[in-house]
């Protein structure tokens, strides 16, 4: 069974969702929780059976689908994807467990289970076509969640979300097809397997074009500036659970895909585009942080803060060394936990007051002390306090990129300042001061159902901040092999220099700060 655990992880929820259709609506909550608990347990088993010392793909499965074109149903995980899968099952579990009283609960749970399938599928797929199928499929449940349970602008938001990301991924699909075509030209065989593509060394000018094609798909998903505007709408209109999953998992597809596709396939192009992308990422970090500061709606603040953090992840990814990429993978997890928790927290007050405008609140720390505490912990995690999960990722990402450019890292580091500014200001507006609005005086503090979601997230945020080793080690192993692959494949001297081989012993370069520029 362990050989097919990935398939089981992918298809168990969707089968369960089909059976969910016939479950009576009074017992659907228990059913949903049971299914997601099993799914989460399966993913934990995956972690248990995972060999952290091995850098290759594990639990590989392969079934030919269209042999004539080399399209196979190929799955496998390495240290990079395994934790994102576990995070996705975890978030789905607590998401379902903490669902409030909403209309059409049954449909919601079925939708979430289908969404779970697509999330596991994207991160486990090792065949470009399978990857693409799950990538696009994931849009549908999210479209449905936003469009059916969203706020007043939900139709606009969901259509925008769908079309925008869809348009980007079509360009990506063209890139994939061309990649397969090139593979065919080079070897005489067709293959869409990512691992086969890794073995190709593409000419540099071709890499540049393909990189751009893939980049469009990924950048819209991440979302990178200036393709980010769908995100605030989607978050602003989505129900709590939708925002949580969107922020925690779906956005990670973009950054994950950068590491899975762009870097190892196009090492020279990655080096070529490193500075432009870093500049975009820095704009993301600072600009969206400033926009977040200007928001009046707390959920929008967190939505923009997500973009800002995604900028740091991109910076780490394009550090092109082990420190940076490990950091960015870890930050994906960290941001998943923290942003997920923050959206949950916003959902808590939205459930009570049905507004998210910050000026409606103030002094909540008086009436909801426990809520204020958890929010405070998560806020500190979000601004990257050491010993919380985000710090590890941000530190490593910035540390990695520092090797590539010191000035740009300094600019990206401004993110920790502006991040603190909007977060603290928002916190102050919500929680500090006297209670000005009488409606807030008797708000009930956080209840058990909400604690079910928030306590594990808080625990994770601190545990992985203090002791990231169990997660960071497997990530490190896999990232080292990817960086080594990039180093070996790099053709230009510039790329060879920029992508250090992790296997060679680190020498202490004696260089001045001017030389590096």
């Amino acid at each position, binding site marked *: 069974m362990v050989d097919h655990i990935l398939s089981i992880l992918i298809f168990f929820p969707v089968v369960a969702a089909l059976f969910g259709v016939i479950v009576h609506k009074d017992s659907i909550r228990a059913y949903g929780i049971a299914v997601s608990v099993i799914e989460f347990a399966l993913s934990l088993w995956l972690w248990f059976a995972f060999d952290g010392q091995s850098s290759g793909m594990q639990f590989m499965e392969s079934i030919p689908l269209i042999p004539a074109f080399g399209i196979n149903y190929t799955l496998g995980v390495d240290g990079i994807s395994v934790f994102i899968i576990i995070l996705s099952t975890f978030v789905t579990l607590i998401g379902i467990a903490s669902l409030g009283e909403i209309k059409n609960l049954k449909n919601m749970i079925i939708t979430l289970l289908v969404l779970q399938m697509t999330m596991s599928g994207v991160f486990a797929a090792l065949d470009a076509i399978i990857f693409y199928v799950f990538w696009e499929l994931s849009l549908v449940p999210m479209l449905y969640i936003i469009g059916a349970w969203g706020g007043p602008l939900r139709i606009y938001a969901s259509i925008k979300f769908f079309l925008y990301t869809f348009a980007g991924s079509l360009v990506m699909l063209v890139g994939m097809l061309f990649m397969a075509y090139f593979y065919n030209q080079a070897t005489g065989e067709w293959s869409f397997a990512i691992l086969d593509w890794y073995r190709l060394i593409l000419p540099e000018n071709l890499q540049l074009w393909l990189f751009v094609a893939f980049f469009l798909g990924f950048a819209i998903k991440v979302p990178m500036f200036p393709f980010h505007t769908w995100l605030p709408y989607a978050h602003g209109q989505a129900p709590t659970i939708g925002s949580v999953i969107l922020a925690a998992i779906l956005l990670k597809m973009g950054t994950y895909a950068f590491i899975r596709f762009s870097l190892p396939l196009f090492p020279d192009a990655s080096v070529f585009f490193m500075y432009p992308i870093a500049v975009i990422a820095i704009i993301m970090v600072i600009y969206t942080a400033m*926009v977040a500061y200007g928001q009046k709606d707390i959920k929008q603040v967190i939505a923009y803060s997500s973009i800002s953090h995604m900028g740091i992840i991109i910076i780490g990814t394009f550090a092109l060394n082990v420190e940076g990429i490990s950091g960015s993978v870890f930050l994906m997890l960290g941001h998943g936990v923290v942003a997920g928790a923050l959206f949950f927290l916003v959902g808590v007050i939205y459930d009570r007051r049905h507004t998210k405008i910050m000026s409606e609140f103030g002094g909540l720390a008086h009436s909801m002390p426990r809520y204020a505490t958890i929010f405070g912990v998560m806020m500190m995690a979000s601004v990257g306090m050491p*010993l919380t999960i985000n710090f590890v990722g941000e530190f490593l990402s910035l540390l990695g990129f520092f090797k590539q450019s010191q000035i740009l890292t300094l600019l990206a580091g401004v993110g920790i300042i502006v991040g603190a500014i909007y977060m603290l200001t928002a916190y102050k507006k919500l929680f500090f001061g006297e209670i000005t609005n009488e409606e807030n005086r008797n708000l009930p503090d956080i209840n058990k159902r909400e604690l079910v979601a928030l306590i594990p997230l808080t625990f994770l945020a601190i545990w992985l901040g203090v002791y990231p080793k169990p997660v960071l080690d497997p990530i490190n192993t896999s990232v080292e092999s990817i960086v080594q692959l990039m180093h070996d494949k790099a053709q230009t001297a510039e790329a060879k220099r920029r992508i250090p081989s992790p296997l060679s012993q680190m020498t202490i370069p004696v260089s001045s700060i001017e030389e590096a520029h």
Partner: protein
Amino acid sequence: MEKYLYIALFAPLVSSLFSALFTATPKKTFTGIIASLLIFSAFVSSSILLTHILGGGEPIHVEMMTWMATGDLYIPFGFVVDEISVTMMMVVTLVSTVVHIYSIGYMDHDKGFNRFFSYLSAFVFSMMILVMSDNYAGLFIGWEGVGLCSWLLIGFWFHKESATWAANEAFIMNRIADLGMLVGLFLIYWNTGTLQYEGSFAAFAHLDTTTLSWIGIFLFIGAMGKSAQFPLHTWLADAMEGPTPVSALIHAATMVTAGVYLVVRSNELYSLIPHVGLFIASLGAFVAIFAASMALVNRDMKRVIAYSTLSQLGYMFAAAGLGAYWVALFHLMAHAFFKALLFLGAGNVMHAMHDELDPFKMGGLKKVMKWTYIMMTFASVALAGLFPLAGFFSKDTILEAAFAEHHFVIYSVLLFTAGLTAFYSFRLTALIFEGEERYKLFGIHPHEAYKYMLVAMSPLLILAIIAGAFRTTFFGMVEEILGAMEYHIHSHVTLWIMTIGTQVFVILAIMYAYKKYNNAKITVPDGTSAMENSFMYKLLLNQYYIPYAYEKYIVVPYREMSEVFWTHVDLKIVDASVDGIAGIIYNTGDRTSAMQSGNLSTMLKWMVAGLLGMLSLAVVFGLAVRYSDEILAILSGLGV
């Protein structure tokens, strides 16, 4: 010995978590007592460690577990107890024990009693990590941790707008500096391959001066934020919004000295780059006089003491920058004792005066608050640096060091500042304790603080008096690690003249302060006197208008820019262009749907038009293929 290290480190954490259990419940005195006991145990452990080190024992170095390890980076939770950190541990645990006990009384009537102890102990824990860590990353944990606790404690009374504002200001200002520190860390890692003190210090010797200078500068930027050096100093005065024990512990004795600690800890770095050291010393001297000048006129008791702290931090940086690391550390220690005492005394006064902070509204309090009067006077004398109190030994050594290093400008600035220090300290004591009982006008009935609070303060009093006696012992201890040298002025005559001259100058300043402020004519200023309308007075009272400038030229533009970014750039440009593209497609559909009139012959006409178009394309492409060579020739001729 490791056992004691762990006790010293984790007792505060246990204390914090224990108190945290009761945050949701009403005040329970035992949380305060247990927290104090736990902190006291940390103090005892530190003392044991101190005797170990004093007895010539090897520094204790433990590595608890791995924190981050990826690529070539390896950061453990490692802790070291050597001469520097044990000094800091002693200062931290001692002052925090005193403050904990004192707070039981001070926070007696506060709703958030339990919460307060939780935060306070968490602060001690962070501070212990900061001083005990054996690598820069661990130091950074503590660095940010104390920042967080400072935020929590400044904003402890979160219902007050000013408190939360000050808390956020402190946090954000510190963040700015932390970025510099982080960059310093990155530079160290990529140039030496490690963040451990030992490894990186060893590698510094092989680096060129430019790199080292950059490392030194960026680390110092970090220190500037934490130690509130110009231009990041404004938060410290605003931080006085927090409860007074917090000001004593965090914003006088421990956290703000973390910057000095960092420079002292990195002495092997800074001794390689004396020009950066000189810059640090100059900035320190500047801040010393700059802050002292603001303290001269301020009418808020706590702010005066805060500026005095700032000024003393300037002294420490001046010493550290000149390479006299042990002097800086010694002054840090002595300063912690008398400044904490001063703050706690101020806390007593505040309590007695029902949170009134204006010393002009006090006066004559020595009759009702005898012990507080004695303690604050001693603390002020120590601060002013009169023989034989602690301040004399530490501050005088700084002056000697500046003189011996032939930095006479720094020396004279510091000397002048010593006079200012004496003046403002005694202006404060005179206004508070001497003269008419002006408070009666406001209907306040002051009373002395609880006995045990006074008892708790007494160790600080004793230390403020006698700490100078440890100078030689201290020197002997840190000599090796800080490469310390005694500063000897070549001729004894010069030394004596200098010392006595300084003393006389300080005494004159004290006398002037007493003469000016200890008389019956003092009234609450109402903004009419000539002095209050003078330019200098206004300038100083408004802190050189720096906070206004920050507000006007940084905070407000930032806020407005954020608004513009959101409402104009994000919504009107970025998003509108996306919607514009979608709109073009929609409109195309709308317009062209007229073609779909439903009338067959119209549609047929369009069909034929399409056919025509495609046929034309076929012809064009056919021609293009036929004449491709010629076309290419023409295009290349055009330079395409």
